[in-house]
């Protein structure tokens, strides 16, 4: 793994593999990792927008699923407001804050947003 584990070409292939990796990246960076007390520099509104983008990505990917033979799901712990289940270290050992999940309603996503670039939605920032 001399060239960086995150860019292993056999695992991060272009096209759909990259999109799966992106969904997993968002899952991990926003719902995993060490959580510390104190101010979060990231605006929660921006997280909501990011998830709007994720939904849009998955919606747009629906159309190419059949061609690629891969289905994507964005139903992460954050989106569904479920807790992360951990079965080796005990669930109490791992935090799973649902950052901004309450404020985000997937059903509110209108069709215009689905047509935009997934990660730069045109929705106005709050």
């Amino acid at each position, binding site marked *: *793994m001399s060239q*960086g*584990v*995150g*860019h*292993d070409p056999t*695992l*991060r292939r272009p096209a759909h*593999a990259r999109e*799966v*990796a*992106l969904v*997993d*990246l*968002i*899952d*991990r*960076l*926003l*719902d*995993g*990792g*060490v*959580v*510390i*007390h*104190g*101010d*979060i*520099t*990231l*605006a929660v*509104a*921006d*997280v909501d*927008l*990011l998830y709007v983008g994720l939904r849009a990505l998955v919606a747009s990917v629906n159309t190419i699923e059949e061609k690629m*033979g*891969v*289905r994507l*799901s964005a*139903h*992460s*712990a954050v989106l*569904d407001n*479920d*807790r*992360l*289940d*951990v*079965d*080796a*270290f005990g669930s*109490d*050992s*791992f*935090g*799973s804050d649902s950052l901004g999940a309450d404020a985000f309603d997937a059903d509110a996503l209108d069709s215009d947003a689905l047509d935009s670039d997934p*990660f*730069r939605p045109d929705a106005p920032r709050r």
Partner: protein
Amino acid sequence: MTVLYVYGISDSPNAPPVLGLRDAALSVSGRGGLFAVWSEQEDSPFDADETALWEHERVVEALLEQGTVLPMRFGSSVPDREALAELLAERRADFELGLERVRGAVEIGVRALIRGESSQLAPALAGADRPGTAYMLARLNDEKRSAAIAAHIHEPLIALSRASASRKTSLSGDVNTAYLVAREDVGPFRATVEKLDDAVEYATIVCTGPWPPYSFTPGESTR
């Protein structure tokens, strides 16, 4: 007014040879085998766009290359160096135990994506005039299939792993699990995923990674 944006907790005193968020220079603070890698950022909200996520990830992956790392959640910052030193001191035992758990291992994400829509069959079973019953049957069927697939793939994969963390999916019946895998087992693990993908005809099984161990970090000490 600036804050310290923190990327990860590491056992290495060296700054990784990459740049941080918005190409900021990286610094390292800590002592006694426990260090935090950070960069100075303006104390104002920034865009959580794809570029920023990969910039955070780039630093954590570089840390993984040179040692053991507990990644921070994206967007984590402390006011100043004093606060960072306090964090490292207060949670030293927590972090040291966490580093020990993930030493020599990486995280691999596995998704089982079920093919075919059981919801299309359900109306025939329940009768078209009973949509509520049809919905419940569809959900039950999805959950049963999901559970069957989860059990089938979990056994051979956990045998090659130190631990797993399952992210429940409530709508689609898909399986989404993170595995903590020793570096030397990554090859056999991936080969097993490919074998499972070939063997299970009603699901596509894919893996991503290796990732830093985002799903295997200690939680807040207060919880």
